[in-house]
């Protein structure tokens, strides 16, 4: 049970190690002083990441208290919910890119409240209008920022 739950920690540690190795290899492609400091940090990073892999492997065997710590931490976190959270963020990014801030804000807030928050139509509409008004008044009117219009609406 414990080793099954520890797997994410070990996977993360391995991924970090691979990433550290890639960064270190890349550091050697920079000529002169541009590469010196990244190389130094890269070796330290790789060493630490490998140490973390070792700690995770050791913990998987139940030799350290990390196991218990990890257990309590991952408890109650649902992968589905995490993917949903990232999905909502992804939808917002896509919508911002396509139709810009002023259209995305009300649509996103409204959709989030209706679909994820299960709020009433009137409440969702009121809050999405409020959020859009806040963005418009503060950023467009007061701070005079020109917000991204979206690639579909770019003149």
């Amino acid at each position: 049970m414990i080793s099954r739950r520890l797997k994410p920690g070990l996977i993360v540690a391995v991924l970090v190690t691979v990433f550290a190795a890639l960064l270190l290899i890349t550091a050697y492609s920079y000529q002169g002083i541009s590469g010196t400091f990244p190389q130094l940090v890269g070796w330290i990073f790789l060493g630490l990441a490998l140490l973390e892999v070792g700690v995770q492997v050791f913990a998987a065997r139940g030799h350290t208290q990390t196991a218990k710590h990890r257990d309590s931490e991952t408890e109650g976190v649902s992968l589905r919910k995490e993917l949903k959270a990232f999905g909502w963020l992804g939808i917002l990014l896509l919508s911002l890119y396509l139709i810009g801030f002023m259209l995305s804000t009300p649509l996103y807030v409204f959709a989030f409240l209706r679909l994820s928050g299960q709020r009433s139509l009137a409440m969702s509409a009121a809050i999405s209008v409020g959020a859009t008004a806040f963005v418009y008044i503060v950023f467009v009117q007061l701070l005079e920022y020109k917000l991204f219009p979206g690639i579909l609406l770019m003149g």
Partner: protein
Amino acid sequence: MFDSVFTAAEYLTDGMNLLFLMLGVVVGIIFGIIPGLGGATAIALLLPLTFGMQAEQAITLMGGVMGAVTIGGSITAILLNTPGTAPNAATCFDGYPLTRQGKAGMAIGAAVTASSIGGVIGAFILILLLPVAKNIILYFGPPAYFMLAVLGLTALTAASSNLLRGLVGACLGLFIGFVGYDDMGGATRYAAGVDYLWDGLSIVPVLIGLFAIAEMLKLYVMGGSIAKTGETGNLGVSGTLEGIKAAFRHFKVILSGSAIGAVIGTVPGVGGTVASFLSYSFTLQTSKDKQNFGKGDIRGVIAPEASNNAKDGGSLIPTLAFGIPGSAEMALFLGVLILHGMDPGPMLLLEREFTIFVLILALLAATLVSGVIVLLTARYLIKVTFIDSAILIPSVIVVSLVGAYALHNSIGDVFAAAFFGVLGYLMHRFDYPRITLVIALVLGGLMERNYFQTSLMYRGDWSKAFGDTPFVILLVLAVLALLMPVISSVIKRKTRQSV
């Protein structure tokens, strides 16, 4: 020095600046009250609003937030047994029992008074110690600056929840700092052929992502820590005057709490939570009548509240004098300084005395003003904690992304903020401290620059650096900081064995 103090005071009383201060105070109180948000999120969200401001106006706004946030946090600790910010946790021990006895007003009165006086004492300690820090800085050369950055990283890493992962996070932060064109070597590093990365990653989207967006993702996944239970209707907050009087009756507790807070605050990474618990236990240990502690002793509210606001003054010493932020809030504050063209580090103290006094006075004013606001409006403010997280999440994410875009009018910054939001969430999820990444990102430039200057000075022979006294002292401190978790676990084990 006094000229700067008076000019700063005059500056703060100007209408517009006063408005920024008040805005900071109000935001600070609200973010302090809402459990799980706190000062770091407030600063990350307000960052974009400061783009068009003068540096001092931005600092006034942030000073308002930092001065008010812990006072706000004490309200939920007392009324709902839920600390608004981590340092307010110790206030729950006696604050909530007082509420259950119908003495919530008294507890709030005492907490706000202790917190305000603590903030004032912390600010005065800061004013007194800054000239000393200034003299120390003059002895520093490139080797010492390099080691100072190393110390900043190691001290915070050692204080983080996991030493090894803290160091991994720090290395990651350094690499994020390497991205883009390198002034010294003339190469473009880690840009992966992406045009957006050629100029390097701006610190603002990184901070917005790691703190504001990641917190919202956390709130979505974990269900949030916004108060879900408790009745606001029955919370009587009368008797605040009695609480104020009680605070003055136990002035010694305020003084000891403030001293503990200011001293602990100067140690990077230790922070307000340790300070308030230490202050609470010190008061408990030194009190003759201890039987009421934990059951609603007013001293149990005064002690932690005095310390957790006094620590702000203390933690600004390493932040301003050496560029070593003592907490996530201070790291974000350094982000504000960078955004406004100020390099964190020793030169800041030497070149921007006026700006620093604006910050100190803003902090001072914020603690006092927020105290008054909280005393007058506590029973209404508590309702903020019942804001539905379904409303909070999309609104905060949208405002965060608008803010990320606004700095350079770059949609790339929006994607960067979202990326760091996910990274920040994953770091939290797998217990990799975010704070060490941010500090490495902030200190990376200083570190690399001084690494090269030292290498040039000693022609690559770093053993010569051992002739530099500040370098050696800082190196010893950095090693001690790294060994601290090991030493403390050995001490704990020995103590357990002897028991």
